[in-house]
Structure formats: C-alpha cells, structure tokens
C-alpha cells in the first residue's frame, strides 16, 4: 500500500543535542510538509517542500531545518532542541495541482530531557 512512513516513532534526545527525524513516502507526491503538534493542540505547519522548493513559515524558529534529497524522503533537523520542542512531529504529503488532500504519516513523538 502507498503510504507515508516516519522513523522513528519515538525519539528521545537531550537538551541541546541535535536530532533528525525522517519521513519517506511511496505516493510519489511532489509536496511534503512538516507539522509540529504539541499536546492537546492543533498541528502547526513548520515548512513544506514543493518539489525542491523550500517554503518556510514565517514563525518557524531557525532551530528547525529541513532537507529533501529526493522525491521520496524528507528530513527534519532540530539543531539544538529545547524543552519546548517536545512534541509530536507529523509529516504529510500531497499532490500539487490536486485537490489539496494531505496524507499524514503516523508521527514521531519527540521527548527532550
């Protein structure tokens, strides 16, 4: 089945220690998104890639970076995680020019100690 995969599902890191979260997709969608979802809140868009074009949200901290080496993979790098970055991180994909439906992965829950 075509899907969005996120690894790992659970990630524990230390305060200030860089961490990378991974997302892959078999849908061949050209748009990929990263959302941050804190406890009991709505998902908040951090950035998205339209093919190789990176689109950062205005209020996304510089501490968050992303890479998309190819169509299938997208990475979220947190350069110096703080306690406030503990959250669920959701990856999603969509087909540009389609009907805007986004397909979500299961998420990675990040704990910062």
């Amino acid at each position, binding site marked *: 089945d075509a899907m969005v995969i*996120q690894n790992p599902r659970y990630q524990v890191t230390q305060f200030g220690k860089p961490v990378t979260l991974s997302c892959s997709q078999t849908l061949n969608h050209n748009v990929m998104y990263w959302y941050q979802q804190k406890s009991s809140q*709505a998902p908040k*868009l951090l950035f*998205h890639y339209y093919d190789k074009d990176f689109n950062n949200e205005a209020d996304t901290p510089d501490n968050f970076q992303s890479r998309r080496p190819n169509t299938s993979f997208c990475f979220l790098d947190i350069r110096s995680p703080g306690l406030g970055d503990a959250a669920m991180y*959701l990856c999603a994909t*969509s087909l540009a020019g389609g009907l*805007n*439906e986004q*397909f979500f992965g299961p998420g990675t829950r990040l704990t910062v100690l």
Partner: protein
Amino acid sequence: AQSVTQLDSQVPVFEEAPVELRCNYSSSVSVYLFWYVQYPNQGLQLLLKYLSGSTLVKGINGFEAEFNKSQTSFHLRKPSVHISDTAEYFCAVTPQGFQKLVFGTGTRLLVSP
C-alpha cells in the same frame, strides 16, 4: 486569511447515541473543507472532505458532514457512536488552489459505555 473555529474542546457522549461536532470557518475565498481524526499517538486520518457538489458528504466509519455556505459551517455527525470513535477530531480548510491546511483546535470525542 482563513481561520477555523471548533467551539467544543470536548464532547462526552454515551455509546450508540448520536453526536455532532461543530466547525465554523472564515474565508474571503472559496475553500475546501476536511475532517481528520487522530487516535492517541497516531497521525491524522482523513474522515471526509468537501470539494464541490452535494453539500452532504459521507465519509469513513459512518461519519457525515454538511457544508453550509451561508452559515460558513461544516459540522460532523454520526447517528450512533461506538467506543472506538473516542479520538480527537480536527476540522481544516484550505483555499482552493493552495497547499496549506489551516486546522481548528480540535474536539475530543469521549464515548463511554
């Protein structure tokens, strides 16, 4: 800009009772509307979507929603809920032709025996 309001943060209901989760939106342009469900520690799963055409939309798991343009609402309904419907439900909108979803703050549906 678009915004979504989910007035009910939590809706408790007994099993086999009907339920309605409310969603109102604001937008100066035409939008697509979505309902997503999120089970604990999982990603978002699309329940249903309104793109155009019939204002009554049927989705998975027996859910349906009705688009009301004059009231700018997209309420989600189910005639008889199950324990397994306990989850967080998010309403979302996206301007037609754009890629960004705007989420409401979510409604937690709690189904008890």
